[in-house]
């Protein structure tokens, strides 16, 4: 190959281009490594600190009273799952539905506004969403509650899921949609059973990213779910969550609390990772083995 090139353009030209190619390759590989370094540092530090602090009591015990060592975050683990779970119940159907709508009606003025609003809302700091939920739910209903926290998180999820769903649906070849319509399948059924079904693993990835993002949110929960040192799963009372508990413990002066904050951070990361692998497995499996 090089011989063929050299007869046409001369040996130097080929060497020069080879050199350019190799140096660009080296630069991009270098950039990738630099990008990965913080990721591994954070994960590695979290693992070493967190694993040392984890014990069985952490999962099964309630937070210990101030000054008393030991205890755990059982209520915060359940609380996080509950708050995020309810946020999903609200946010996933709305986000996916809105995304499908945006993708199906690309050109209208209305969808342009919806898309623009979603983009703007995505950039709104999460603490602002928290204050909003405080104003419209916590104040009128007279207190911090699980449901207020879930609504705040759902508001963040909806914009993220709407946009990723739209993008994923647009990746489905328009020919598939036409093929379905040409079989006499109604528009709505085509959108759900062919277009959305084909984009399912992409949509699921978007949902997971949104779940991962809100699971790590602390600011909106400070005003809404608030935190609770006691066991509560009620929708209408304050509830403890891992992020708020980690925040409280991490800034405390007690070494034992700081230790537990590391454990909490590790558990939170573990929950998100497990969720991610789980959904990936489920949707990946569904795409291969039909019904």
């Amino acid at each position, binding site marked *: 190959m090089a011989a063929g090139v050299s007869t046409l353009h001369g040996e130097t030209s080929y060497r020069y281009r080879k050199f350019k190619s190799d140096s660009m390759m080296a630069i991009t590989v270098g950039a990738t490594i630099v990008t990965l370094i913080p990721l591994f540092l954070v994960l590695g530090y979290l693992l070493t600190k967190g694993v040392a602090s984890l014990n069985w009591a952490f999962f099964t015990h309630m937070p210990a009273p101030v000054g008393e060592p030991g205890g755990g975050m059982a209520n915060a683990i359940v609380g996080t799952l509950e708050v995020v779970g309810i946020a999903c119940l609200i946010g996933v159907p709305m986000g996916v539905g809105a995304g499908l709508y945006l993708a199906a009606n*690309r*050109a209208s003025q209305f969808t342009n506004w919806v898309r623009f609003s979603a983009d703007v809302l995505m950039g709104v700091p999460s603490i602002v969403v928290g204050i909003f939920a405080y104003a419209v739910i916590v104040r009128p209903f007279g207190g911090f509650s699980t449901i207020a926290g879930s609504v705040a998180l759902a508001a963040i999820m909806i914009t993220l899921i709407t946009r990723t769903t739209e993008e994923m649906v647009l990746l489905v*070849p328009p*020919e*598939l949609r*036409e*093929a*379905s*319509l*040409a*079989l*006499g*399948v*109604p528009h709505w*059924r*085509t959108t759900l*059973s*062919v277009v959305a*079904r*084909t984009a*399912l693993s992409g949509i699921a990835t978007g949902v997971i990213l949104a779940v991962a993002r809100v699971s790590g949110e602390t600011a909106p929960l400070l005003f809404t779910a608030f935190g609770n040192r006691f066991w509560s799963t009620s929708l209408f009372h304050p509830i403890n969550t891992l992020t708020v508990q980690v925040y409280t413990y991490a800034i405390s002066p007690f070494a034992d609390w700081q230790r537990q904050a590391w454990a909490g951070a590790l558990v939170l990361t573990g929950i998100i990772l497990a969720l991610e692998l789980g959904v990936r497995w489920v949707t990946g499996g*569904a*795409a*291969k083995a*039909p*019904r």
Partner: protein
Amino acid sequence: MGDGRGGESAKVAMAEKLVVKNLNAYFHKNRALHDVSLSFEQDRIAAIIGPSGCGKSTLVRCLNRMHEVVPGATASGEVLLDGNNIYDDGVDPVQVRRRIGMVFQKPTPFPTMSIEDNVAAGLTLNGVQISRAERNQVVERSLRQAALWEEVKDRLRRPGGSLSGGQQQRLCVARALAVQPEVLLMDEPCSALDPISTARIEELLLELKSAYTIVIVTHNMQQAARCSDMTAFMYTGDLVEYGETKQIFTNPTRRETEDYITGRFG
């Protein structure tokens, strides 16, 4: 084989199945078809030829109201299916498309479905309730009609995308046949296929001809000459000439047709 359809209309030989009257098609303000009028007869294959962008695809897409699926695309005029205008107010395009099936240029098996689910898709997606046994029958009959059964009968549960391009296109034919349409529209069904797969599709057309009215758009003049009974030549949105294939290819009445067929342009 291929007698999936009710018999009474088939008795009337050479009946006009699909009649197009003064059809105009638009993309926004752009007029893509100019007053096209022609008719397609029962149990015959009609080919539509012409250079790129002449409106061949637009014409067939108007025949089952797929044209209007594209944003900004509209059509006016009449298309009569057994004497009933499919563009009448109150006609549901969904019902039209169940009677007039279509195969596209690129093979489009549904990637999330297995081979058998692809074939049955027109039934399941339309909510038709059928037993497992009936479903298997439909799948086998359609795949046999599409000359694909022997190749896939042992792997019906594999994804539709696992087949070769030519097999995928025959799968799409089977999928279109499974809903038992009366008319089959084919929009350059062989343009993405190799010569062997093309030959199989053409054989298939000749076999299906006794049971379906077939309209095929093709870039390939030899293909039109080989497998069609009637040929329409289109140029810049006009129907230039329509007649028996033999006559169009040996003794065209219009100068443009002759120029195109002899390879002077296009």
